[in-house]
């Protein structure tokens, strides 16, 4: 639905009322004159009566122009009165719009000594409370930021320490790995050496056993012989 300004609403009501009341008044006066003329028809001279009737029939110009005059003056009054309401309202709208944008430094300066001034004062108080709340919030935010910064620094330091430790550990692991590799190599060498000897020992043992068996066989042959 299309928005209609307060001015047009008030103007329509005032002009409508003025127009209707004036037309009613003009009609009543016209009817009154007509009644007087009809009553005086038998007493007044014909010439004077004729002149009065002509004057009365011409009176629409006076009625019309007077109604226009009254409508004009009423419009002027409506403009002056509505302006007294609309200008403070525009001021308040501007202030609220500024507050909406985040500007809490604005103040509604209205000195009309009426409800609009009360409204402006209430809005000013609201802006002041909003400003206090915003200041507190900003203070809290600053404290939180400082805390977060301190924590971040601590965490960063811890991370750095951990990284350092990680590097040290890696180095240690590398060293140990090298050592272990060396050991493994040594063990492999030892293993290779020990396994070779054992194989030889086994061969020798096997040969010894064979030789012992040969000796035993030879001994038994000798006995038999």
């Amino acid at each position, binding site marked *: 639905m299309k928005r209609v300004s307060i001015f047009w609403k008030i103007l329509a009501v005032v002009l409508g009322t003025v127009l209707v009341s004036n037309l009613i008044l003009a009609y009543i006066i016209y009817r009154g004159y007509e009644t007087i003329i009809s009553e005086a028809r038998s007493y007044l001279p014909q010439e004077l009566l004729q002149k009065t009737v002509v*004057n009365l029939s*011409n*009176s629409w*110009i*006076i009625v019309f*122009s*007077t109604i*226009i*005059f009254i409508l*004009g*003056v009423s419009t*002027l009054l409506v*403009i002056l009165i509505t*302006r007294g309401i*609309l*200008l403070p309202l*525009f001021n308040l709208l501007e202030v609220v719009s500024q507050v909406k944008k985040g500007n809490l430094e604005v103040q509604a300066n209205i000195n009309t000594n009426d409800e609009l001034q009360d409204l402006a004062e209430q809005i000013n108080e609201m802006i002041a409370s909003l400003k206090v709340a915003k200041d507190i919030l900003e203070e809290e935010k600053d404290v939180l930021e400082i805390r977060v910064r301190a924590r971040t620094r601590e965490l960063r330091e811890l991370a750095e320490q951990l990284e350092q430790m990680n590097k040290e550990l890696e180095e240690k692991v590398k060293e140990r790995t090298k050592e272990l590799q060396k050991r493994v190599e040594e063990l492999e060498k030892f293993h290779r050496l020990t396994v070779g000897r054992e194989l030889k020992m086994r061969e020798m043992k096997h040969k010894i056993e064979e030789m012992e068996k040969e000796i035993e066989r030879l001994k038994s042959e000798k006995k038999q012989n």
Partner: protein
Amino acid sequence: MESNFLDKLIGVSFSFINVFPFSFAAYFVISKKKKIELSDIFLFCFWVSTAISGFIIFVMFLSYHFLGVPLEKTYFFILATWIFFGASIFFIFLFLLSKISIKPLIKIPSALLFLCLIIFILFFYFKGAKVGVRMNNPWLYSHFEKTGVYFLLGTIFVFFLTSLLIIKEEFQKGKITWQNLSLLYNYFALFLYGIVSFITTFYFFPRPIIIEIFYFLIPYLVYLARKEELKHEKS
């Protein structure tokens, strides 16, 4: 009809008092103005011519009612009054013409045409007119009076519609705002002058003093208009 002393006094004093609103209005139009535009000059000339015509009426009433000047001699006063009244109508036409947004090529011929029309109306009004008394004051009776009244009615109606059109245009252009109603006050002053003059001049009853009091609203409106303009210039 013989008028009594009180009627004469009221006629003379009110015609004298009426000069002040128009003089003040003329003064307020150009007061403290750094840059005077053509429309301001026309408006100033309009208020000056109305003030002069008001002053001539005062001199005429004074000389006729109290200085014993014969009725026939007042013809020249009436002539001067109507000439200045015609000039004021012409100046207001020029003012409206300077405000309306039409091509200058149309403006000049229409101004000349309107001037010719006024001269024509005045010429035929004075041709064969006879000096008489109306509402105890000198008046010029002419067979062209009815035509003149209709011309005046038509002119007021056209001026009124043109003013509304100009107000609409200037409202759309942003020249008239709720913060700056200067032009609107000027138009209201003109409207008041037009309608009150019409009612007081063509009233069928004795001078309607109650309506004439509204003349004093005119300089106040012009003063308000100038005040608004100054405030707007400062801001």
